[in-house]
Structures are given as C-alpha cells and as structure tokens.
C-alpha cells in the first residue's frame, strides 16, 4: 500500500448552505493489467484528512461519522469493466464499520500515466450515520462523492 496521487471530494448539503470536503490523503494499491484489461484496487482515505475549510464543521463530521471507532473509509474493488474511455468499477465501500456493495462509472485515460475520475452517491442512512441538524433541519441524506486518481504506470 502506498500514497496515491489524487483527490476525493464529498458534497454536503443543507437547506441553508452547501459545502465540499476535500481529501488528498489517499493510500492504496491499484493493480492494472494492460494486456488483459483487468484490475483490482484497494483505496483507503482517513476521515480526518477531509477539509471543508471550516474546522468546526470538520470536527462535527468526525463525530457524526464515528471516526474514533472507524477512522477510515475503505473501498475494495470486486470487478472492473473497461470500455473505450471509461470503466465501470464494482466494489465494496466500508464506512462507519458498515460495508456495502456499490458501482461507479469513471472516465479512464491512459497515456504516460493513468487518469481515472468519476463520482457516485451514497446515502448516510445506509451506513447508519445520524444526520446532523442545524436550525432544526437535517443535512441531506444523499452525499455525492467525486474522485480522481493520477497513477504512474
């Protein structure tokens, strides 16, 4: 497992305002076989590495996501389906001690490096995350996750 060049963002939403939390701390292992066009991946991101530019909000996020007991989000792939310039990635996402299978479609570009970018949605309730409330209103249950990875061949 080693550090991966890339970025993962989450988009939080509340009736009063929206925000983005960004992490550039990604560790993992991605094996890609160019000839056989298959791959497998493990991606790990510490929750503490997400920065939404407001420390108190980041602190609250760590509390609500039980980061003390489950400090990282982990993705492990189960299957890759490559198309011309895209890839469908299937795998298991572990968050708050709960693992759910998921699928994401990503842009896939190969040159001197391999560039993968895509997004998917999660529902906080699926991972038993209690949604924080502010001014008597909860944040949205649906959270968009965007990612990109720049991998050296």
């Amino acid at each position: 497992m080693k550090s991966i060049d890339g970025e993962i963002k989450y988009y939080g939403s509340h009736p009063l305002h929206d925000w983005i939390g960004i992490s550039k701390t990604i560790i993992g292992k991605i094996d890609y076989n160019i000839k056989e066009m298959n791959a497998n991946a493990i991606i790990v991101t510490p929750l503490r590495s997400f920065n939404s530019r407001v420390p108190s909000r980041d602190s609250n996020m760590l509390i609500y996501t039980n980061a003390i007991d489950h400090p990282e989000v982990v993705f492990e792939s189960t299957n890759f389906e490559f198309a011309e310039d895209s890839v469908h990635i299937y795998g298991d996402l572990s968050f708050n001690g709960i693992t759910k299978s998921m699928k994401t479609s990503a842009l896939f570009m190969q040159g001197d490096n391999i560039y993968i970018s895509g997004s998917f949605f999660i529902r906080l309730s699926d991972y038993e995350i209690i949604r924080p409330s502010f001014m008597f209103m909860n944040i949205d249950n649906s959270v968009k996750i965007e990612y990109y990875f720049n991998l050296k061949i």
Partner: protein
Amino acid sequence: MKNLIALIIIMGSLIAQPKYDIEGEEFMPLHTKLFWGEKGLVRKLNLAPKNRKDELKLRIKMLQAHQRLALASLGLVAYQSNLGNQLINGDYSKLSKHKNFSRVSWSVYMASATLSYLAPPALKYEKKVSSMKLHRWLSYVHFSGMMAIPFLGINITSSSNYDKAVKLHQNVAYITMFSLALSGLLTILPY
C-alpha cells in the same frame, strides 16, 4: 482479501487512536482550555465523561441546546428592545414589564452562553479565521453587553443625568442586540 480489509480497518483504528488528541490544540479557545484542557477545571474535579467519545456526544448535545436557546434569546432581546423603545417614547406603563422581562431574557441568554462556553473541546482547531471563529469573537461583545445592561438599567434610577444614563443603556443594548444578530447570521454562512 476480506481478511486484508479487516486488518487494514483494525490497524487503522489502532494507529489512529493516539490522533484523537485534538488537532490544532494550540488554537483551542482560552475558555475551553481553562475547563477542558489537560489540566482544565472539569478534569481536575473529575467531572469529565469517562472517555473522549462520550465527551464528544456531550459536546453535540450542549451545542444543539445552545443553538435553540440562542435563537430564543435573540427573540427575547429584540422584544426587550421594543419595550425599552416604548418606555423612551413615554409609555411608562411598560416599565414593570421591561424590568421583569429583562430577567427572563438575561437568564435564557446566560443559559445559552454557558452551554457554548462550557462545551467539551472539538476534534479540530485551526489558526485561520472562519465564520465560526467570528461567531465566537462576537460572543465576547454581546456577552459583555449582556453583563453590563442590567447595571446600566439600575443606573438610570440613581443617575444624576437621567438622559445620559438612558442613552448609555440604550446604546449598549443596541450594540448587544446587533452583535447577537450578526453572530447568529454568521452561523448560516458556509465559510
């Protein structure tokens, strides 16, 4: 492979535990340090929750209650301001109401302030200025105002210069109310 994932998660938990010290602890507000720092009063008196997790749950509960009471106190202070203006305009029938209501609004405000000032520390602090940091700085303004207002009100009856005493009380009340409203507004901003 599932065993590997489980190992990563377990290792992460074990390695991460020391990090649940506070990030940016040097930027923790002074009042939080005094009560919840390593040698803080709450810890010295053995009143702190058993573990950091329970502390954080307490923090959430206290700050949620602070939000609700702060909104209520803003409304009460605005109403008090209205009563005060009616007095200034000559409607002295409001005097008893203004005096009695001051106790309610002051009590609700102080309860809200206590919940905020005494809440356990967050997991992360930074040097940079954010809307929440401005919210905290403004609290020093309206807290000082709320402490002064009752004395300034009493001063009106004993002062040799009635108009000056009323003006001082009114101005401090306006500054307090304005800073309280601005403080509330800042919490809505995303940054």
